[in-house]
């Protein structure tokens, strides 16, 4: 998956930094599973539209829906630049490792 757009999300979720990331392809179970390299991944396969959420020890929160080409990312107040770089590097690395970058599939919670 390649990041093609990043938009700041304006809302009333106070004190955080919320972004919408857009990709050149949809979230598959393999792509979702790849996020487990970054932190604790939960995948809710039984939801009407299967949902995933990722939480990292550094305080990064990511969530999205299988089949969509975007996800919501919330960065913590501290070390935001480093955490953002690490998150975006994840997708750059997957691009370089194609094919076979998505070795790990999402597993149901």
């Amino acid at each position, binding site marked *: 998956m390649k990041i093609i757009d990043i938009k700041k999300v304006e*809302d*009333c*979720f*106070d*004190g*955080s930094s*919320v972004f919408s990331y857009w990709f050149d392809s949809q979230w598959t179970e393999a792509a979702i599973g790849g996020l487990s390299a970054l932190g604790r991944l939960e995948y*809710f396969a*039984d*939801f*009407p*539209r*299967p*949902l995933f*959420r990722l939480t990292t020890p550094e305080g990064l*929160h990511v*969530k*999205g*829906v299988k089949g*969509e080409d975007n996800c*919501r990312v*919330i960065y913590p107040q501290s070390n935001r630049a480093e955490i953002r770089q690490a998150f975006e590097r994840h997708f750059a690395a997957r691009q370089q490792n194609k094919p076979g970058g998505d070795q790990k599939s999402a597993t149901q919670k």
Partner: protein
Amino acid sequence: MSTSVDVITECRQRLAALLHAGDPTRIVLTTHATQSLNFAVLGLGLAAGDLVVTTVTEHNSVLRPLQHLADRVGIRIAYVPLDEEGALDQKVYQELLDDKPRLVAVNHASNVTGRVNPVAPLFDWAKQAGAITLLDASQSMGLIPVDVSELQADLVAITGHKGLHGPTGTGALFVAADVELEQVFVGGTGVRSDLVRHPADMPVRHEAGTYDMPAFAGLAAALRWVESREPEYCAREQELGRHLRAGLQALSGVTLFDAQADVERTAIASFRIGGWTVEEAGFALNASYGIDCRTGLHCAPLIHQAIGSAPDGTIRFSASGFNTADDIEQALAAVRHLAS
């Protein structure tokens, strides 16, 4: 075919009728309730040391203009807390009135809990203390009666896009006949162009610039709908709100805030789901279940300390008279699923 003058006149007349305000020239048309509240708060000529009594249930559209005046001219602000039952603490309120506030600003209904404040007695006491009364009717107009005489409201801020079902970008401010606000927004009016200064007559006294005519045409249509809708509309909305709150309260793993059942409310419910942050739960409800809701502090930061939902706020569901009992059950099923 209606002219622009017809549209503006119709909006004033219908709003005046809804408010039981009599004279339509006391209705100033604005772009939203926030602008109305700014005109009211900034136009009263409050000075250093003047006391304003308001409540912890207010929206930032009241809190921030007041804080702006506190910072700029040194007014004093006192916030009425909630009592143990979740209502405005009337004992504290009455004690604050002893200090002769210039202004008392209260919202008709909380945008977080839906609880309707007992405005008529609060404003009666405020008037006896010599205060000007400002009602934020953003959450009530079109849903529960707003009678300026009955409530003893000198100033009423209204938004067009909530209970009136009009377009965004429309609002109004009622100004009682014996209240004169200073002008805080002046410019072109399309009338009395020969004058160097902005006209002083109501309502153009507070209106400058070109009206958003498509929006006000929409508001006029919405006001016609409010007048002609089936009488059961509001009762149905209230019933759906009770259905929603009772259902949420019964769910394991769900915390309903300000859960008291036997109080007057709009059809709003604020809650949290165990195991989910409010933001994540809102995302899941929207993205996975197709249920629109709002999360966070809802621009009303003070109430969350009082109801126990600070610092992250709540998930907020709002029922409409256009919803059905089946819609409510679907929403409850989604929350039950997330909580399981």
